């Protein structure tokens, strides 16, 4: 277990030294929050910012996971992974350290977005609510970062990964419940949105905002995360023997 944190520490040090990188992933969600959250003339609610904020928090996590998915692939391409694999530390700690780094980095970025949302007037100040929201985002982050790390590891090619990234990240966001409630969507979109795992995370946060504990969606996310993580371990083991 300790080894996992050392691998994670390495990634954090590297990340904090790259200055552009630290800020760049925050631009897109901040822009959504300001230009869409504040500006869009919406009739179904009188506080669209409160409605869209959970979607933007999840979008931040989504972006962080997609960006981080390539990290292990780069470690492999650049030769770091070979050195790590020849060390006596349990090999899975490389994978777990990476997933944990991507998720925690995502949570840090989400926090910045959360602060911006609160400054703009969203209502998120209840500590119990915040704790619950972070738990949901953490599980969602584990799910997506294991998935994207595995995809990248399978592809072994940065261009293909970037193409997949561009192809699915925005559609995943638009076909979720991020921008409007299900009853405002056309039927075909509502059907897609109910299948989309991104909606699960968003709906869970909205339920928490409304004071309901979202047992079903929460368990759904948790089971999903565990399954994807197991798959990720299997692929990692196969890719490194």
């Amino acid at each position, binding site marked *: 277990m300790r080894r996992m944190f050392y691998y994670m520490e390495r990634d954090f040090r*590297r990340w904090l030294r790259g200055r552009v990188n630290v800020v760049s992933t925050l631009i897109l969600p901040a822009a959504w929050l300001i230009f869409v959250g504040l500006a869009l003339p919406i009739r179904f609610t009188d506080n669209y910012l409160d409605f869209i904020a959970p979607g933007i928090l999840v979008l931040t996590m989504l972006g962080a996971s997609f960006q981080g998915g390539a990290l292990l692939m780069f470690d492999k391409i650049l030769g770091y992974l070979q050195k790590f694999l020849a*060390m006596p530390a349990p090999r899975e700690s490389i994978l777990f350290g990476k997933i944990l780094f991507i998720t925690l980095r995502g949570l840090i970025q989400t926090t910045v977005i959360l602060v911006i949302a609160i400054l703009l007037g969203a209502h998120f100040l209840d500590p119990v609510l915040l704790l619950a929201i972070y738990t949901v985002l953490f599980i969602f982050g584990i799910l997506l970062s294991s998935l994207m790390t595995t995809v990248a590891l399978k592809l072994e090619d940065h261009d293909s990964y970037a193409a997949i990234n561009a192809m699915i990240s925005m559609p995943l966001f638009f076909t979720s419940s991020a921008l409007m409630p299900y009853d405002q969507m056309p039927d075909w979109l509502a059907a897609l949105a109910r299948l989309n795992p991104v909606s699960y995370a968003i709906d869970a946060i909205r339920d928490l905002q409304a004071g309901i504990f979202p047992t079903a969606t929460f368990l759904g996310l948790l089971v999903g995360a565990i399954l994807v993580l197991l798959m990720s371990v299997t692929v990692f083991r196969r890719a490194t*023997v």
Partner: protein
Amino acid sequence: MAAIETSGLTKRFGSLVAVDRLDLAIDREIFGLLGPNGSGKTTTVKMLTTLLAPTEGDATICGHSVTGNPLAVREQISYVPQDMAVDPKLTGRENVIFFAKVYGVPRPRETADEALAMMDLASRADDLVRTYSGGMRRRLELAQALVHDPEVLFLDEPTIGLDVAGRRRIWEHIIALKNRGMTVFVTTHYMDEADQACDRIGIIDYGRVVATGTPAALKTTVCRDIVSIRADGTFQDELPEGVTFLGRTDDELRFEVDKGEEAGLALSRALTKGGMTVRSVSVRQPTLDDVFLALVGEQDETEAFDARRFRRILRGRA
């Protein structure tokens, strides 16, 4: 028990035999594995470092089997692959401390300092690796590899891409490690470096080790004197008795002979008679390059010389 022992170690990728029944015993020495590109050097190292599972056979490192107990093997070894993988955004010290922690060394900071000092990097330890030269990065990798005091060190092309001073320095460090009792397994393309630094050498071609021995022994047993002749034209005749064609680069032909001085004259006469214009003749003692070329052959021959005829002679000798 030798530090590294392999018995029938074999790796096949589909129908390609990358490493073919390797039998080696290496102990407290610098062993250099030499071979052309794609001959199986890196595959061998990867099997010995437990990164690749052998198709057949086995190897032991300090008595631990790479197939049966890979974890114990990894406790005893360090592996420095050829692609300079150190984090440029971290300082030298951070790079080494990270390895010390992952290895589970009791006092990672102090151990890292010692390793950095041993590699003459103490004064630059707090600079970002981005500012390091190639030679310093390689030394930093050695420092990383040394933090857990391994018994066996695997180095894949340790001096590739370094300048002359950088190379010499790396070899000095490798020799110093051997003198402290470490077993070093190294692959390289640089024959002169292998000649100076390695205690024993194995030459591998198409996955088979075709010769092992000290550089001196290989030079005397595999090669005789070398005659280099610069000449133009095409050779059509028979070569004199006891002469073996080694290879050709541009207009330079190399032959292996018993008594260099006499055979050189005879050869130049034979070539002139065979239709070539001889411009210069020189005789020298064999180097490891010649041993290598004699055993492995040259992949890049020009066709103006009657290559097929000499290939036949070469094969008849082997």
